[in-house]
């Protein structure tokens, strides 16, 4: 109780510096949080692409319908192919129109009543053998009757490298910002100690242990850290749910991960950073006035 009172007293007396350090810590946490949210969303997007593990093979228009059944069998016989589904171009068009509603009208704008699509095979590669995905798609692409294929491999590769860059960048941003926060918090605590150096001096003379003198300052550091964590969490939530998600919702091909699913991790990050920076920042700045 005494320690808490003492810590609150110090915060009140030192409110400008406390406010400044909470603010700087918050800025650091928000940058770290945003980097994490980006990375998590990219990962989720990659997963959703990966789930499909599907190759779409478009059949050349010149191929006669009688050949289709044997063609499907040939594809099925390729190693690691799990299933093959034949979709006629009319079915594909109907699907497309259903999926994109308004945008589909552009098709008729360009092509009139003609269906620009081709008959296609949708091929699932066995999920256990995804590393063979490329060789399977190469084999199918090499077939004479197949005009061309599309698979998600390229996009996945691009996203993997983007995520790698984000992760490395995020890690270094986190290290640098943690150092900045540590510097700010430790200076706040140093100032608080300077303000109370006479008290500390008297405490030493009456036989207070160093741990006893340190505790309120360490509590002060932890409170600054946790306070910044709570406010940052709220701000991050507002930015993500009320600004970012409505903005991204307009782009129909990207879906964002719900905040609730990412929030435990964000809470853990912010709480951890706040606690650690508060603790370390204060613990290392207190020794100077204890040498009496």
């Amino acid at each position, binding site marked *: 109780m*005494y320690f808490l009172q003492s810590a609150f007293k110090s915060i009140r007396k030192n409110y400008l510096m406390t406010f400044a350090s909470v603010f700087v810590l918050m800025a650091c946490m928000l940058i770290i949080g945003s980097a994490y949210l980006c990375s998590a969303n990219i990962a989720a997007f990659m997963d959703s692409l990966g789930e499909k593990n599907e190759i779409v093979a478009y059949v050349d228009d010149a191929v006669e319908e009688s050949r289709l059944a044997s063609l499907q069998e040939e594809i099925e016989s390729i190693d690691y192919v799990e299933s093959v589904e034949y979709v006629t171009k009319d079915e594909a068009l109907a699907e497309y129109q259903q999926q994109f509603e308004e945008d589909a009208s552009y098709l008729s704008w360009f092509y009139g009543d003609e269906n620009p699509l081709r008959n296609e095979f949708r091929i699932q590669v066995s999920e256990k053998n995804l590393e063979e995905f490329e060789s399977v798609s190469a084999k199918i692409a090499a077939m004479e009757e197949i005009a061309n294929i599309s698979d998600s491999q390229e996009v996945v590769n691009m996203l993997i490298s983007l995520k790698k860059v984000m992760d490395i960048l995020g890690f270094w941003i986190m290290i640098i910002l943690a150092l900045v926060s540590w510097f700010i918090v430790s200076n706040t605590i140093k100032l608080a100690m300077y303000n109370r150096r*006479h*008290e500390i*001096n*008297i*405490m*030493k*003379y*009456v*036989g*207070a*242990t160093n741990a*006893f003198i340190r505790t309120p300052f360490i509590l002060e550091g932890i409170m600054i850290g946790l306070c910044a964590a709570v406010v940052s969490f709220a701000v991050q939530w507002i930015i993500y749910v009320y600004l970012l998600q409505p903005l991204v919702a307009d782009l129909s091909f990207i879906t964002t991960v719900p905040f609730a699913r990412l929030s435990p991790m964000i809470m853990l990050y912010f709480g951890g950073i706040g606690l650690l920076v508060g603790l370390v920042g204060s613990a290392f700045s207190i020794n100077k006035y204890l040498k*009496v």
Partner: protein
Amino acid sequence: MILFDDVYKSYPNGTNALNGVSFKIEDGEFVFVIGPSGAGKSTVIKLLMHEEVPTGGTVRVGDFDIKKMRNSKVPMLRRSMGVVFQDFRLIDNLTVFDNVAFAMRAVGCSPRTIRRRVPYVLGVVGLGHKAKNFPPELSGGEQQRVALARALVNNPHLIIADEPTGNVDPEMAREIMELLNQINQNGTTVIVVTHDNTLVNEFNKRVIHIEKGRLVGDQVGGYYAEEE
């Protein structure tokens, strides 16, 4: 018991503050430590409190060997003594009550003990009615009595007073010495470092005289000659 055995103390800047000082103070004694400025009186206090350690010789306070003891034991040493400074060293934004209570909190006393003990000690120094005042509202003599109450509150075996009458008027100085005398009669060892020859001569106690870092006199009822 306090023992100084052939104690030397030199500071990093080359000053030799003590040069082979030896004396012994038994429990329950009242001792004046006198000498001109720069004689080494303050160094004696710093050694007693483990603010400094001797360069040579032995300093013992009770069971503590100042030179050999571990730093973690220093709080325990200091709890066995109460210190009064010339400049009072009170915290201006705490009330008289809290200034005294502060010393009890610092050693981990319970709030209940503090509520009972502080008014009693303030009564002993005659400041029971000023418990809610702040130090700047008090006279120098009253502030020194608050400092004395703070030194007394944890029931130490030893009171060290460093020029306790330096900043108060002569009448108040006398009262403070009377208080220290009373405390001593109850069994507490009292060491008073002072310049004040009138008081030393009036109270007729043991006087340890230090000059230029050497012991030049140690006798009961010692007389403090006019300062040279």
